[in-house]
């Protein structure tokens, strides 16, 4: 087992879903001085990035938006990074630190985890707030370590995870995508030949909305009268659109919900059968 495989195995065992490696030199092209790995750890040679699970597919289906706000992630990526740091220092005798990622002033983190994930080949930017999407697992949360250990790096992904084929087809038909349509105030972009051509994200506007206590469109559980089964989850229309199982009567479901769910893991993993889920729900 190579050193790279050893480090990655430690991270995966500690709970990471994916682990990738980026060389420190790769950060120089786009990262301003003071925010590069070697600015944080003198002599840094490699950045190891761990991706932890995002929300479960079930969490995306919850009609109560507060559930997602509270339980979006499980922090395993941080645990994985610490386990790999321990391994690198304890076994391989090189310095290793967790890369600082929380903003220390304004919205600027000392080091961008999104950029680190891209450089480590774990995902690509999306039209939706430029959030990094992994082609297999969709939305993941990222943490990274910086080390003086020289490691063979992974390559950035050649094929972008966004736009999803269903979204590219939608753009071709009506000139927008699910994410752009659900939040035209914060997001804008164009798609050409199935690839993102331009993309804009108004972060200031997004922040001011995410903290609103009273949404324009209230969400929550249905009243008792409306609870009678069978009923469908909020994202059923979108699921059908993306999986092209049936002709789509409406192109989009409710317009007040975040749509990163289109990249949730469950529908995209080959080993997960979808049939038992939806027929069960519909049968009730």
């Amino acid at each position: 087992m190579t050193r790279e495989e050893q480090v990655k195995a430690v991270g995966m065992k500690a709970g990471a879903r994916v682990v990738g490696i980026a060389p420190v030199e790769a950060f120089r092209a786009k990262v301003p001085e003071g925010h590069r790995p070697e600015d944080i750890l003198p002599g840094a040679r490699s950045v190891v990035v761990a991706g932890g699970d995002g929300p479960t597919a079930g969490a995306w289906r919850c009609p109560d938006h507060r559930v997602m706000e509270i339980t979006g992630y499980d922090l395993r990526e941080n645990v994985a990074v610490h386990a790999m740091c321990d391994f690198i220092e304890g076994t391989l005798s090189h310095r290793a630190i967790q890369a600082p990622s929380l903003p220390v002033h304004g919205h600027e983190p000392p080091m961008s985890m999104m950029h680190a994930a891209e450089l480590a080949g774990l995902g690509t930017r999306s039209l939706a707030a430029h959030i990094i999407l992994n082609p297999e697992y969709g939305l993941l949360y990222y943490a990274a370590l910086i080390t003086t250990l020289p490691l063979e790096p992974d390559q950035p992904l050649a094929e972008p995870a966004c736009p999803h084929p269903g979204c590219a087809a939608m753009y071709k038909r009506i000139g927008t995508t699910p994410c752009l349509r659900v939040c035209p105030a914060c997001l804008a972009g164009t798609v050409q030949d199935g690839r993102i051509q331009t993309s804009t994200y108004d972060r200031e506007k997004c922040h001011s909305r995410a903290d609103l206590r009273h949404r324009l469109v209230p969400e929550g559980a249905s009243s008792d009268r409306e609870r009678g089964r069978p009923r469908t989850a909020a994202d059923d229309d979108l699921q059908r659109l993306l999986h092209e199982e049936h002709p789509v009567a409406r192109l989009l479901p409710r317009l007040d919900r975040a749509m990163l769910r289109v990249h949730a893991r469950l529908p995209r993993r080959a080993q997960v059968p979808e049939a038992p889920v939806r027929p069960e729900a519909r049968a009730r």
Partner: protein
Amino acid sequence: MADLPPGSAAKLKSVALESGATVCGVADATAFDAYAPEKHRPGDLLPGARSVVVVGGAQPREGDWAATSPWVMQTMGTTERIQGVGRRLAQYIESEFGYYALYVPPGTASGDTPFLSLMLAAELAGLGSRSLAGPVLNREHGFMYWSAVITTAPFEADGVETSPACPAPACREMWDRERTTPCLATCPGSNGGCLSGKLENGRAVRTFYDAARCNTRVHTHWVGGFQKVLEETLNEPDRDKRKMLLYGDFFTRSLWAITYSSTNIAQCFECMRVCPAAHGLREMR
């Protein structure tokens, strides 16, 4: 267990225990309808919910219970340990069985109301029963913390516990002698406390827990305390007094409590500390 391979529930429970749970049980999602209010039932959080998987554990250690300082129990939160197990099970159900799974968030949806009552979930999953003092106690392990996962997977449900851990034999004897129990005696509602109750034939026939009063005692350094000091500070015209309010011991402690601990939003633990059913089953040196 239509559509699930045989032994799925057993496999799931085995993974739960390997991940750090002390106990694991399954409740039927529809069983909540009789007890939980609208908007707080499994189907309200996950359409098509069939089961609720409940894990318990992360209980305070015997050393915690034996600590002489009440602050040990009130500030050393351990609930995160069982919450991590819940999150892991949700991921496991989706990746292993291919059914939707939603980890029930800890905390409250609004006011003091949880998204889904974890205590009710634990009861319906056969993991314990309510005690005179309020918390659900497991017959074998006593007091513990709970985490739950709502899923569309039709796991076979466990039956509710038929023989409650509370009142413990020692408590029944005490009731016969003194018409009180250790928990009721330590915090009597009739004398400024939070609890009262009645036993008949060794079973609790009436229980009372004054949650509002209990909250005022244990939330002293929590969000309410923060808000109170903030209001006082905003209304205080004297600059030096404002500084004292913000940099003083009370406000500093409130900030530490909010940022670094979780259990002091729960009980003060004194009723559980004296409960023979809650802990103390193992002799320690």
